[in-house]
C-alpha cells in the first residue's frame, strides 16, 4: 500500500493519492495536499465549508453527492467550484476531503 508523508505525518493512500481511511483525515492533511491540487496558499473559509460538507455527506451516504447538489447546497455555481478546486470537484475536492477516489466515468 503506498503511503504519503504530509506535514510530518504518514498516510496510507491509493496509487492516485486518495486517503484509504476516511477517519485518518485531519485538517493538516487537507492543507498539506492543497498545493498538489493547484490551490495556492492556505485554504480559505470557502474551501473548508465545502470540505466539511463533502465529508458529512460521505459519512452519511458513502459517496460524494451529485455535483449539482454540492453547488446548490453551498450556494455556489460550477465556475466557482472549479475556481476553488481547479483540478475539479471529483478529483481535487474529494482528495482534500479524504474521500475515496470516485470511479467509473466520473
Amino acid at each position, binding site marked *: 500500500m503506498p503511503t504519503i508523508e504530509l506535514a510530518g505525518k504518514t498516510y496510507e493512500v491509493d496509487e*492516485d493519492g486518495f486517503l484509504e481511511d476516511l477517519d485518518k483525515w485531519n485538517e493538516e492533511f487537507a492543507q498539506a495536499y492543497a498545493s498538489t491540487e493547484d490551490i495556492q496558499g492556505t485554504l480559505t473559509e470557502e474551501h473548508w465549508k465545502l470540505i466539511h460538507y463533502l465529508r458529512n455527506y460521505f459519512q452519511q451516504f458513502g*459517496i460524494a453527492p*451529485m*455535483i*449539482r447538489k454540492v453547488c446548490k447546497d453551498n450556494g455556489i455555481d460550477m465556475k466557482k467550484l472549479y475556481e476553488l478546486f481547479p483540478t475539479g470537484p471529483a*478529483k481535487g475536492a474529494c482528495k482534500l476531503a479524504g474521500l475515496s477516489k*470516485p*470511479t467509473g*466515468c*466520473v
Partner: protein
Amino acid sequence: MLHPPLDQQPIDPAYPFRSESPLSREERKARFLGALKGILELDLYDRPLKMYLDTCARCNNCAGQCPVFQATGDVHDLPAWRSDLLRRVYRRYFTPSGRLLGRLVGAKKLTAGDIDAMVEAFYRCTMCRRCAVHCPLAVDNALITRIGRVLLAEIGFVPKNITVSVAAQLAKGGNTSSIPPAAFIDTLDFLEEELVDETGINIPIPRDVEGAEYFFAAPVSDYIMEADTLMGIARVFHAAGASWTVGTENYDAINYGLFYSDDKLEEILNRLLAEVRRLKCGTLVIGECGHATKAALLFHKVFGRSEYRDIRIESILQVTRRFLAEGKISFAASKDQGSVTYHDPCNLGRGLGLYEEPRELLAAAGIEVVEMQPNREMNLCCGGGGGLVVAPDLHDWRMSVGGLLKAEQLRATGAKTVVAPCANCKKQLRELVQHHNIDMEVAGLHDLVGRALTREEKA
C-alpha cells in the same frame, strides 16, 4: 531489400499506462496462445476475425483516418502495424502458410516482449472505428483491438481503474461509481426537487414500478455528473405520459466488458436484464451513453440469457425521437441557446447508426446545429473512447494525443455549446475544453431537449 519492421518494439516511453500481470513471462505466452485458440473457435468472431487477420492490403488508408496516428505520426500508431502484432501471431500458430513459411509471410513467434508491446498498443486505440470507414478491404482494426484486449485480459492485463470499477459493479447491488442505494435515492429526491424548481410542477422519477413500460438505466456516473441530462430525460418521459421506472437494485447501464472481456460483458448485461425482469418491464432504455448502448444492443441476442431475449432494448435517443414522431411530445418556440455543435459518439454513430435522431430532435427543439467538420461517419472520436477515459493516468495522453484533433475541431466550430449524448464523451470533452482553453460548454442532448419541451406537462 527486405525490411523486417515487425521487430521494432514500441513504444512511447512517455505513455503512462502500464498494467502488470501476475503471471510469469513464460506463462503469459502459453496462456495467450491458448486464449487465442479458444477465441478463433468461437462462432461469434469466426468470420470477421479470421477475415481481418487474413487480409489486409497494408495500404495505410486507415492511418489517414486514425486520430491517434494523426496526432503522433509514430509508426507504432499505424492501425495496420498495431493489428499486425496480433496478426503475425495468428499467422505463425494458426495458419498452414505461417507454420511453413514463417517470417516470409509475416508470421512471428510470440515473445513476452510482443505481449508488452500489445498491452500498450491495444490501449492506444480508442476503438473508434473511423479507420474502418475507408478501408478498401473493409477490415476493422477496432475489432482486432478488442480481441487483443480480451486476450490480454486473459493473462491479467487490464487497466487498474477498469478492474476496480467492474469489481465494484459486480459486487452485490454495486455499480461502477460505487453509489450506494441510499445515496441513489437521495439523488433522485434531489433531482425531483430541482425539477420542481425549474418547471414549477411535479415531475417524478418513478422507482421500482412493477410493470412499467420503460425501464430506464443511465450510465451511473450521470447520478454524480449529469443532473441536466437526467432531468431532461425525466421531463421527456413525463411529457409523453409514458410509464417508466428506474430500478433501485441495479441502476447502472455501464458495461466496461465491451472494452476487454466477453465474460464480464455477459455477466453485467444479464444482471441488468434481471432487474428489468424483476420489475416486469417490457423495454430497457439505455441513457445517454455510447458504449453501454452498443454493448446492450449488439450483445443482447448473443449473451443475454434466453429468458431475457424478449426484452426490448432501445437508446433513449430512439425513444425520445419516437415520442416526437408520435406527437407525444412537442417543443416550444426556440429559446436562444447560443450556437450549438453536435458530437457524434462513435458507438452511437458508426456503431449503431444513430446519426439523424439527435439532429432531428435538436432541430425540432429549434436549436440550430453548427456541424463539426467532418461529422457523422467521419466524426473524430473524443479521444477517450474504448474505456480510456476511465483511466486518470491517461489524462495527459488523452489531452495531447487522443483528443488533440478533436480539440481543434471543437475550436473551429466557434460554438458555445457542444452536445454529446454520451457520458464517456462528455467527461473527455469537458477535460479537453478546459485543457485547451476552449470557451465551450459541454452538454448532453436531453439537457437541451428537456428545456425546450412545451409546457403541456403542466396540466
